[in-house]
């Protein structure tokens, strides 16, 4: 250890212990080399490039739209987890549960509205992020693979938005999903079958609510998280963020 030991024997004892050294495997990141090591030795940070280009950190280049989208995804994960403690996906309880979250759960109205607004905003920021990438031509090789991953992430975002829309089980939820799934019946292949499978029945009902709930709280978030890992890692593998147009 090159720094921070001082003369204090307690500090020295802590910093030389096996526990400390297994958590902090490289010296304090104060040089180019140790800063690079800090990124590469961390499972979360190593997805990202060790160095970024000067233009990449300029706010007006990216407007941080991808970062904001990811931040909103984290907000939605945490607030969604909180809401799960007070919500039962049953047609006899769902609507009352939402009312109870709004009215009688401490900070329930705040958590629900954070979830709701973050969801609306995430669709918006993902869309704007896509436009930003498009106008920078950042979909061109070698980034064409990551563009496709991003398009899939857009679909997962919309799927999360759609499945979450039904859960309050109010009139707008019921009819929006009725109309939305009816659109599937206009598809050229497997039209009625796909609507039947999505609805878990012939019309929106208990089967639909449970199906949409499971898809909303585990299936799509898990798939989206896996694709996000690939998405972030590909930025590094494709030579960092694209250059100015």
């Amino acid at each position, binding site marked *: 250890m090159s720094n921070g030991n001082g003369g204090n024997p307690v500090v020295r004892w802590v910093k030389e212990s096996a526990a400390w050294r297994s958590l902090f495997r490289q010296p304090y990141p104060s040089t180019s080399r140790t800063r690079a090591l800090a990124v590469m030795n961390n499972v979360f940070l190593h997805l990202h490039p060790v160095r970024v280009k000067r233009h990449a950190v300029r706010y007006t280049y990216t407007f941080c739209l991808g970062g904001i989208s990811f931040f909103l995804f984290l907000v939605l994960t945490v607030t969604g987890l909180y809401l799960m403690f007070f919500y039962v996906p049953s047609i006899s309880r769902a609507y009352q549960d939402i009312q109870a979250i709004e009215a009688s759960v401490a900070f329930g109205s705040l958590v629900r509205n954070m979830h709701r607004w973050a969801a609306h905003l995430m669709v918006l920021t993902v869309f704007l992020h896509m436009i930003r990438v498009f106008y920078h031509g950042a979909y061109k090789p070698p980034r064409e693979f990551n563009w496709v991953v991003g398009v899939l992430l857009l679909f997962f975002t919309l799927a999360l938005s759609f499945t979450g829309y039904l859960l309050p089980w109010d009139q707008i939820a019921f*009819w929006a999903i*009725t*109309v939305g799934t*009816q659109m599937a019946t206009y598809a050229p292949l497997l039209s009625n079958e796909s609507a039947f*499978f999505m609805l*878990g*029945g012939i019309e929106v009902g208990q089967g639909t609510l449970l199906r949409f709930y499971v898809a909303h709280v585990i299936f799509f978030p898990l798939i989206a998280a896996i694709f996000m890992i690939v998405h972030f890692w590909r930025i590094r593998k494709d030579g960092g963020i694209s250059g100015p147009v």
Partner: protein
Amino acid sequence: MTQQHASYGAVHGPPTGEITRRSFMRRVLGVGVGLLSLEFLGGTLAFLWPNLTEGLGSQITLGSADDINNQAPEWQNGLPFVYNQANLFFVNVPAAKARVAENSGGQVTSDVSLPVPDPGADVDPDIAPEDRSVMALWRKCPHLGCQVPQLCDRSEWFECLCHGSKYTVIGEKRDGPAPRGMDRFEVLVENGVYIVDTRQVISGPPPTVMTFDKRTASDITEHCVG
């Protein structure tokens, strides 16, 4: 053998023209994992495929004509019976036709006189739908799935509130964006009791079908929608 790779320079590619033990095992593994994945996907789809035993999607017993008249006294005067549990209109066809004729100002004719307390049991699938004694029309609009409201008392048509699709009392399409007439279900009669089989949806007739109530939207002065 050695090949030139764009990024990595000289690399050893797979051996060409011969199957080694290694490449054979690799292919077997690939095919095996592929087959298992397909089986898993098929099993998952089968597991999640809806299996309906009650409500819409099963056989629903409505009761006899008397039972329906007791619940909905206007049924014998031609107003379709709204059966909410399965989201359908149960139409007393002769009474409904007489009702439309009576309220259409002479534009539609029918030789039946009201009331018709028991329309009978002519529900054989071989009989043309408009000649059957009762019909079970699904209230889900074939356009985008909105719930079709009860018969409009001005036009004697079903008029969907969402986008203005309009249907006659026996579910033939007359106006609006819907691609076909109202979807329906087969009706069975056992000992005078009507049973609606909602396991299979029967698509409504094409918009060109006009067997009864041949008025167009402009023939009617007042609508409920649009």
